[in-house]
């Protein structure tokens, strides 16, 4: 703060002598507030004498004054340094372990992690994530992959368990027809084919036999290829396997005296809210809810690590759809009856409806041509039951029974 009559002269002399002055403000009267450096303040003394002004320090600011203050408050400095040291030391340790692992394995994985040194309070510098992962994999045969990552003071452990393939049934079996059908494809993978594609088969008829015979014949490809020579016919019991597809026909019946109104549910998105954590960052409205609507809410994550999620509000409205005639109702009933008889892999290829009207009553019969797998495994015991062969006897593929369940009968 500079006071006195010749303030302009003071400023001009200061600028001529290159004394750094800035933020100069003139207050009421002959008072000037200026900012200068420590060195500049010392240079002002001759000017003060020459201009007759008085200079007074109003406030001291800057690093030299701050350090001088700190010198008096040494305990504060020590505390700050201690705090920094503590923060540095604590940041170098693991304080949280996030385990992403199926529940059954969690206890074992935790034990192994502790054995590998990954516990709460462990020094991060002494731990190698790859080494811990390798130790875990070596310690347990139930794990397929282990990933260990350090994020700050958190260790994230992700574990993928081994999923072993299911051991298939190896008992010998035949393949038999599940229904009356015309065979479209028959490709035998294992076993002995008893029918051919294009043939009609009955329900329960043997399609592929689990008994395979080898003749003591050089021309037999099995003998020729394997180089084995059989002194007498050999029989082998296998699990028959084949691709069997057939065409079959199904019937469905339905009747109805009057039509009905079909109802449909209409789902409308009303609002979409975008959240980052628990803070809503954006909201978009698509439609307004009406009193008839039933409101539902759906929530899904857009980006899990950032907790970015969408919350959607739906309005669900039951709408009246078109009226169905009695014929359409009966047709639907018949068709549903057909579908009940179909397997999951069966397909309807053609539909032929037969419609009969008796007054108001409409009867609909549907004949559906379908296509799908028509074989099922039928296990057997090699040493017992009917159709067991003795060595030297072989089944005659042409000798098929009407039922087809056990076409292989001992000859003689």
């Amino acid at each position, binding site marked *: 703060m500079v006071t006195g009559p010749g303030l302009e002269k003071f400023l001009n002399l200061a600028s001529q002598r290159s004394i750094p*002055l800035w933020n100069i403000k003139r207050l009421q009267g002959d008072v000037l507030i200026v900012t200068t450096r420590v060195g500049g303040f010392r240079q002002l003394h001759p000017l003060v004498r020459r201009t007759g002004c008085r200079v007074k320090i109003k406030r001291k600011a800057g690093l030299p004054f701050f350090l001088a203050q700190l010198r008096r408050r040494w305990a504060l400095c020590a505390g700050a340094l201690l705090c920094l040291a503590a923060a540095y030391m604590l940041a170098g340790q693991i304080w949280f372990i996030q385990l992403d692992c199926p529940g059954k394995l969690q206890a074992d994985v935790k034990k192994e992690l502790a054995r590998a040194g990954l516990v709460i309070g462990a020094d991060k510098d002494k731990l190698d994530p790859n080494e811990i992962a390798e130790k875990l994999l070596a310690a347990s045969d139930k794990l397929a992959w282990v990933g260990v990552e350090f994020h700050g003071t958190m260790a994230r452990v992700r574990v993928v368990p081994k999923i072993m393939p299911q051991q298939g049934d190896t008992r010998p079996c035949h393949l038999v027809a599940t229904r009356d059908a015309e065979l479209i494809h028959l490709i035998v993978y294992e076993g002995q084919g008893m029918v051919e594609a294009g043939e009609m088969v009955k329900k329960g008829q043997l399609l592929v036999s689990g008994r395979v015979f080898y003749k003591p014949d050089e021309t037999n490809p099995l003998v020729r290829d394997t180089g084995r020579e059989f002194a007498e016919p050999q029989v082998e019991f296998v699990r028959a396997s084949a691709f069997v597809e057939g065409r079959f026909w199904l019937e469905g019946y339905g009747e109805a005296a009057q039509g009905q109104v079909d109802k449909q549910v209409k789902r409308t998105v009303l609002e979409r809210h975008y959240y980052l954590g628990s803070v809503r960052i954006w909201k978009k409205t698509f439609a307004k809810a009406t009193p008839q609507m039933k409101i539902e809410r759906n929530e899904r994550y857009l980006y899990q690590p950032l907790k970015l999620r969408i919350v959607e509000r739906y309005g669900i409205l039951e709408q009246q759809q078109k009226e169905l005639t009695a014929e359409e109702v009966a047709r639907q009933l018949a068709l549903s009856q057909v579908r009940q008889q179909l397997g999951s892999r069966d397909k309807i290829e053609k539909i032929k409806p037969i419609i009969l009207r008796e007054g108001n009553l409409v009867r609909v019969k549907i004949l559906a041509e379908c296509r799908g797998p028509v074989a099922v495994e039928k296990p057997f015991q090699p040493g017992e039951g009917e159709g067991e062969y003795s060595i030297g006897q072989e089944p005659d593929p042409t000798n098929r029974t009407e039922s087809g369940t056990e076409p292989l009968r001992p000859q003689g």
Partner: protein
Amino acid sequence: MKAPVKKVGKALVELLELPRDIVFDLPRMVLSGNNQLIMENHKGIIEYSPGKIRVNTRLGEVVIHGSGLTIVTILPEEITISGRISAVSFGDWGV
């Protein structure tokens, strides 16, 4: 004697397209909006109050009118004034 020299000097500057402010040591002012004025080649402050600043130059004085006027920096060759500037006038200019 000075007038003919001045005339010759002016003619030379125009002929050679030299910058006049450097050759004649003219004050150079940059006014940014009505908030800041930077003036080069000044010869000192004649008067300073929050509403008016009079600055001396080689050709005469420059008067800056306004309110809340402060001198941001003052150096031997340059002065920066900020505040709400309402008018800049030139008094007793030789040219």
